[in-house]
């Protein structure tokens, strides 16, 4: 198990190293760059050249890369040029990371709480109205563009009905104490209930929009998996032995049906960042997804580098955790690893 974990961590490091080279080369191959971001239409050819020199952008690309790696190893990814000019990219990332995690957790939570019970119930009453509604709903959830859904939710619930705020993470002017950077959690920890509720209100819509795809996917996987398991011999045997429906559900069906669901949840969590780019933009959510969108538009290399490398790390890490939890859930996998 330990050797397996170490091997996976080494793979992770290799992935990151290769990614950093590709990312660096790709960003530098794009026309424009930080100089345009900093000077806009106010710069002359002379001031642009002067600035390139000051920032070391006139050096050969491999020199720039090694400078970047040298600094990055000490946590210095450069300074933002467009998202929040003047702010160290790593600091910006660390500040925005909790926002995206909070949003993703909210989305996953909504998806899990809704999709697993619904998926299970749909499978149990196959062909019933819940099953049919669930299948159609999940098809819509997967196929509807996330930004459109975000706009729709916002238009109806915020603008027309005024039930929820249109964006941001907390009402401005609310003097909330910050502890962890997770606003809902901060409100609970400091017992500032107003702040916690306010943060929750701000979180709800973007999390709901972001939950659409994982919700749909988890629903379908749960449903399919439960159907598969219910057809298995051991479930039939359990039934014939006269075990109660509850025991069959908890001990046999759910436990075994959860394996593919766990994998899916892991993959969906990793994929949430791509959805977060759009959701965060629509809801002015100050997270890394929004930073990525603005970073691309304004060619903010330092922010793009730190966000993309961190996102890749998060993705690989989540998958590692999924694989490890697989091993925990299913002893056969653990045994296979030993061999």
């Amino acid at each position, binding site marked *: 198990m330990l050797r397996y974990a170490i091997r996976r961590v080494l793979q992770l490091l290799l992935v990151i190293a290769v990614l950093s080279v590709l990312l660096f080369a790709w960003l530098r191959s794009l026309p424009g760059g930080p100089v345009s971001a900093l000077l806009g239409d106010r710069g002359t050819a002379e001031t642009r050249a002067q600035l390139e020199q000051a920032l070391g952008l006139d050096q050969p690309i491999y020199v720039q890369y090694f400078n970047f790696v040298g600094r990055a190893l000490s946590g210095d990814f450069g300074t933002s040029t467009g998202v929040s000019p003047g702010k160290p990219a790593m600091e910006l990332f660390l500040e925005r990371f909790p926002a995206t995690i909070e949003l993703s957790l909210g989305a996953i939570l909504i998806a899990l709480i809704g999709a697993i019970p619904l998926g299970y119930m749909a499978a149990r009453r196959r062909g019933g109205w819940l099953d049919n509604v669930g299948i159609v709903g999940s098809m819509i959830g997967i196929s509807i563009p996330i930004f459109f859904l975000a706009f729709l939710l*916002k238009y109806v619930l915020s603008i027309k009905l005024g039930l929820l705020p249109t964006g941001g993470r907390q009402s401005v002017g609310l003097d909330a104490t910050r502890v962890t950077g997770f606003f809902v959690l901060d409100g609970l920890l400091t017992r500032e209930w107003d702040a916690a509720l306010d943060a929750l209100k701000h979180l709800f819509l973007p999390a709901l929009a972001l939950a659409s795809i994982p919700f749909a996917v988890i629903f379908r996987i749960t449903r399919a998996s439960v159907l598969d398991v219910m057809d298995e011999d051991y479930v039939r045997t359990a039934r014939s032995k006269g075990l109660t429906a509850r025991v069959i559900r908890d001990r046999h069906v759910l436990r075994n049906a959860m394996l593919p669901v766990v994998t899916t949840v892991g993959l969906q969590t990793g994929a949430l960042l791509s959805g977060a780019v759009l959701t965060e933009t629509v809801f002015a959510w100050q997270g890394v997804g929004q930073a990525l969108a603005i970073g691309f538009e304004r060619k903010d290399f330092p922010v793009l580098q730190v966000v993309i490398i961190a996102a890749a790390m998060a993705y690989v890490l989540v998958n590692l955790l999924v694989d490890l939890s697989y091993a925990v859930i299913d002893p056969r996998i653990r045994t296979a690893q030993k061999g």
Partner: protein
Amino acid sequence: MLQTRVAGRRRIALIGLAGALAVSMSACAESERDSGGEGQTGGQLVFGAAGAPSNFDPFYASDGETFRVTRQIYEGLVGLEPGTSNIKPELATEWDSSEDGKTWTFTLKEGVQFHDGTPFNAEAVCANFERWYNQTGAGATAALSYYWIENFGGFKGDGKPSLYESCTAENETTVKLQLTRFTARFPTMLSQSSFAIQSPTAMEKHQADNVKAQGDSFVFSDYAREHPTGTGPFTFVSYDEANGAIELARNEEYHGEKAKLDKLIFRVIADETARKQALEAGDIDGYDLPAPADWDSLREAGFNLMIRDPFNILYLGITQKNNPALKDLKVRQALAHAIDRETLVSSVLPDGAQPANLYYPEAVDGYAKDAKHYDYDPEKAKQLLAEAGHENLNVELWWPTQVTRPYMPNPQGIFGAIQEDLEAAGFTVTPVSKPWAGGYLDQVEVADAQLFLLGWTGDYNSPDNFIGTFFGTPDNQFWTQGSPWGEELAKQLDEADATVDDAEREAKYEEINRKLKSEYLPAIPISHSPPALVVAPEVKGLVASPLTQEEFAPVSISG
């Protein structure tokens, strides 16, 4: 049967829970809105900003998002009359110059103090000028000291001539500034936000000059990020970056009429549609630069759409470097006759846009009304092309993507209209589109383009800020150095700017404008477009500034 009933109860409980949650959330949302209006004074105003400010030390900034905030915290020696580009006294009550225009004496307002309680006086003014002049390293690059370099030239000891020579505090309220030469831009140029006066004590305490290049950008000092200290009607409270909100509070010790609002908050909402929706939902009270396509719907929804006087220019730039045919004046004149500015303005640009004849708006000094006008005349354009021997001339027409600018709210639409006009007049157009910060600006600046769309928003009322910036050195995006008149034009601009006598100078600028249109034609002026801002109907007292330098001190929110 039992199972069904239990499931039924659970369902009801779930629905009840969801309902309760929705009701409690809506109750909170309503109570939040109710607390918004508190009459003529007091309350808070939330204004939507399109981007994060770069920092809060205006000397190191050149972007509008930064200046919108710092304009409320700081004041300059001279300010702007609300709603105009004319200067007015601010921290200086009056000023006078020697006959040669090189020595300027400013009388300062008495009884003014910075937000940190230290006095504003002549020494503080000189400390600011000396700070600007003594920038070194990263601080002396154009990315940080853009406005100093543009207006004052070099820094101490860097070899480039500087307009600044010395500053002397004659007494508490009298400052004598010595310039190395006369320029007609002085003292108007001091109205720019970068030249706001900051507290020397606070700058020293929080190491304002501690700015350095790092990675692909710059790291600012603690002063610039957390301790901006001026004399203005609002004081800096906090910048909550995690929530994208900058909070300012009324300066209770302000020397003039105090701000009406208790709190002024700028909330960063990068997406334009999201800004509009936030206004519609009442989450913000206003925002800048609404898209022209939204103007009507915002008006219809009862919002107060304020259209600024246009203080900008959109031009079709001509680079003479890569297409030899463009060196021929007749070809450039054919371009001028080919473009139907009137139709373009009425069909593609927002209300209040005007066709441009010169390279700056009429409100700026030295505007020559009698300068040569090129009517829309495609036949004449064809004839000129034929005379020049370039029928069916192939030209590259560059336009930027991923951007809108106040002078260019719809780059693709403008490009389309011009392309059509040029083709109707016998040009063969090859379109070239590039992302604004992804190559367009870089390549246009080094004169890679042939024909290109670009423009300029004036920083202050001076012809030099427009045509001096465009053609003041022959090494420019229009490649005027390739023309026999490029050097001459730059020289004429220098001479005009150095002319002390107002009437004489005005005449010189008028003459330059005439020549620019009839003899040189380095670009085709297209239009002046008015940028707008929009506020909720309850917001009173905001005066739109042509230079986008609105002041929020007189603003209130009515019940």
